[in-house]
């Protein structure tokens, strides 16, 4: 059965997610279809668990099914406390599935407690409810396997060994022992001693009682040197004659489901991606060689290769993309739990969950989003009474939305809560010594929002167990920046707050602008480049120690990047960069062009290098630093 483990985990997880999601919908109001969906999902997990031999999991699902049945028949209502219990059950199922995925069994966890808690609900409901079964058309169709397994039926297993088997009796013993692992062997023919001493032709017969199903028995008995295994229902007296012909061959309904999805280890994908990246680099090198030596045929052939490599690259990127729903779907539960904890009412809206992101970006996004969502409910949205007093509806609104914005993915978390209390931020900033009494008055709202991102800064008066533990927005920001994204905040006091995350859909391949600064090459992510202009010397001014440049009535800091590229940066090309709402200019000699490159992270030997997010190797083989624009502001 081991080979089905992965499939079992994947499918059961999907079903479990269905249950959890549907439970939340159900809490909002009765819906026959939803209940049916939950019932089906629980039933499927139950059947699969039994087939896999996870009997504790099966028992839990069975009890859940009992409760869902009562809900379906209208004898029980899914109120908050029942929903809590059922959600706890789905958590437990998830934990068990994690264990199963890791190769363990279903021994862990508090299944028994949950089962008895569920039984209380069933027992306290009028008894006729449990007896009264819905009309047959309402019963989910049992799959063949499940039907058999539910009865723990007896099977007749005929095992035939290959003619050339060495030590056939040992093969037979292994088959018997594998069968005994998933069922109770009632009888064998010839008897066990004779089998163990090789006193049988090539076929022996086993009568076994098992809940694992025919397929599982067939798999268990199969193995090296086993030519054929025939599993049929036990029909009575053991066959004494030639078993082969006597056994009715059971029509086995092979469910021919076309395999449309396969599971691939993410590390394998990463390796493939690395190879594609190398291919991209080497294609560029070959291309330059062909041009240098003016070999026309090679150039043509390389164009063809180039096309395939680009397709391959695109395909790889596509394969790595997964819809944001993958993580968004977990958040309704978070919002529910936090709002229940805080006695708040929140309407949670998710939009654009189908937007796709690279897996590596997605992995790093879960924690920051979780934090922002908890924050929004915990700190943002007010208590119903406060909202009413402020003339708002008692129910707060929290919207999580995602959309593609040119080359980026935009994720917004908006609430209609109290907004950022700027005066409170001011007083806290003074309290924490981040600013002085006088200075703080001059700070703009943007500056104050910046203060919010200081390590450990929180305006919450009380530390709740939901948020406010000092693991603050600074962690969120650094997490987003490590994904090469940025975070912006806008807030209106009394109206609400909006966090906007701008993320690249992928981290590996980036479109960059190649520039030369002081004769040295440098790559700048194109997403950050706003425009390129000629520098007019008289537009450069000095403000304090810093240089600024005036460009069409807009003043922005000007960087010569002397410490990175050496002194005497006298270039006259201005590259305007943007990060969030802020802009700055850098001085460069010349813009060489725009191209897609593979950004390789710096090795740990080099360590963190401020200003550089990685290196890239364009076609000519030169190593070029990629500017980390986030650190410039």
């Amino acid at each position, binding site marked *: *059965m081991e080979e089905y483990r992965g499939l079992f985990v994947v499918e059961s997880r999907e079903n479990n997610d269905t249950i959890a999601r549907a439970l939340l919908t159900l809490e909002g109001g009765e819906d026959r279809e939803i209940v049916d969906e939950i019932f089906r999902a629980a039933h499927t997990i139950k059947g699969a668990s039994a087939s896999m031999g996870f009997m504790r999991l099966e028992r839990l699902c069975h009890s859940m099914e009992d409760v869902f049945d009562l809900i379906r028949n209208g004898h029980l209502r899914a109120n908050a406390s029942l929903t809590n219990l059922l959600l706890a059950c789905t958590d437990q199922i998830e934990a068990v599935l994690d264990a199963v995925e890791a190769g363990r069994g279903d021994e862990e966890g508090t299944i028994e407690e949950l089962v008895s808690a569920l039984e209380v609900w069933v027992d306290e409901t009028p008894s006729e409810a449990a007896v009264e079964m819905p009309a047959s058309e309402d019963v989910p169709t049992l799959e063949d396997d499940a039907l058999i397994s539910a009865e723990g039926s007896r099977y007749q297993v005929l095992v035939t060994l290959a003619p050339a088997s060495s030590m056939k*009796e040992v093969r037979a*013993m292994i088959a018997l*022992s594998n069968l005994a692992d998933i069922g109770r062997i009632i009888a064998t023919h010839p008897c066990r001693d004779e089998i163990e001493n090789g006193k049988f032709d090539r076929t022996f017969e086993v009568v076994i009682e098992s809940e694992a199903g025919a397929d599982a028995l067939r*798999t268990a008995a199969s*193995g*090296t040197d086993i030519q054929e295994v025939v599993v049929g229902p036990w029909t009575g007296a053991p066959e004494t004659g030639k078993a082969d012909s006597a056994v009715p061959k059971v029509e086995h309904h092979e469910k021919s489901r076309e395999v449309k999805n396969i599971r691939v280890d993410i590390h394998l994908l990463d390796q493939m991606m690395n190879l594609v990246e190398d291919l991209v680099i080497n294609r560029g090198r070959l291309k330059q060689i062909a041009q240098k030596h003016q070999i026309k045929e090679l150039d043509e052939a390389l164009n063809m290769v180039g096309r395939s490599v680009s397709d391959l690259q695109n395909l790889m990127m596509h394969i790595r993309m997964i819809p944001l729903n993958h993580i968004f779907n977990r958040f309704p539960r978070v919002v529910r739990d936090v709002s229940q904890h805080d006695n708040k009412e929140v309407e949670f809206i998710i939009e654009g969950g189908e937007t796709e992101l690279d897996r590596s970006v997605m992995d790093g996004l879960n924690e920051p989003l979780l934090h922002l969502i908890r924050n929004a409910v915990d700190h943002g949205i007010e208590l119903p009474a406060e909202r009413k007093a402020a003339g708002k509806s008692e129910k707060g609104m929290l919207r999580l939305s995602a959309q593609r914005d040119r080359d980026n993915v935009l994720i917004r978390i908006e609430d209609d809560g109290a907004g950022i209390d700027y005066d409170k931020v001011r007083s806290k900033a003074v309290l924490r010594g981040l600013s002085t009494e006088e200075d703080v008055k001059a700070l703009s709202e943007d500056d104050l929002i910046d203060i919010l991102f200081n390590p450990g800064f929180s305006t919450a008066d009380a530390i709740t167990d939901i948020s406010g533990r000092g693991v603050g927005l600074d962690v969120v920001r650094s997490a987003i920046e490590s994904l090469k994204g940025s975070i912006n905040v806008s807030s209106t006091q009394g109206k609400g707050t909006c966090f906007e995350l701008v993320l690249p859909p992928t981290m590996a391949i980036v479109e960059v602008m190649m520039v030369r600064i002081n004769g040295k090459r440098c790559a700048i992510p194109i997403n950050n480049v706003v425009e390129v202009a000629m520098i007019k010397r008289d537009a450069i001014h000095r403000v304090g120690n810093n240089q600024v440049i005036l460009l069409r009535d807009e003043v922005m800091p000007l960087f010569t990047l002397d410490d990175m590229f050496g002194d005497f940066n006298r270039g006259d090309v201005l590259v305007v960069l943007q990060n969030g709402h802020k802009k700055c200019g850098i001085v460069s000699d010349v813009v060489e062009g725009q191209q897609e490159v593979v950004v390789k992270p710096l090795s740990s030997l080099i360590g963190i290098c401020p200003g550089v997010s990685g290196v890239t190797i364009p076609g000519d083989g030169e190593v070029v630093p990629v500017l980390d624009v986030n650190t410039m502001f």
Partner: protein
Amino acid sequence: MGRILVVDDTLFMRTLLKNILFSGGHMIVGEAENGDDAIAKYQELNPDLVTMDIVMPKKNGIDALKGIRTIDPNAKVIMCTAVGQEQMVKLAVKSGARGYIVKPFQAPKVLEEVKNVLGT
């Protein structure tokens, strides 16, 4: 593809077996020369599968098998045996061995057995 611990007291047999397993795409995570060593390595490496010679100095393959099965009741152990060792192999199977391969090793047979045992 599995992570395999190869137990045999001769370097030759280990090398032979390693090459066969390697050709089948498996990974050899460790080797042991005797039963005691095998149990220690099993605990340390937690391989997917063990190929276990029967006759070895210090602790023989059957005792090592029993030792490993006490650490991990689900351990997958394949016995390496030769014609004439039927009784020993039967004993091993009763002690929880999942399969056996017969010397002289034939690569396809070995790989088939490994695949079958890893698959169950």
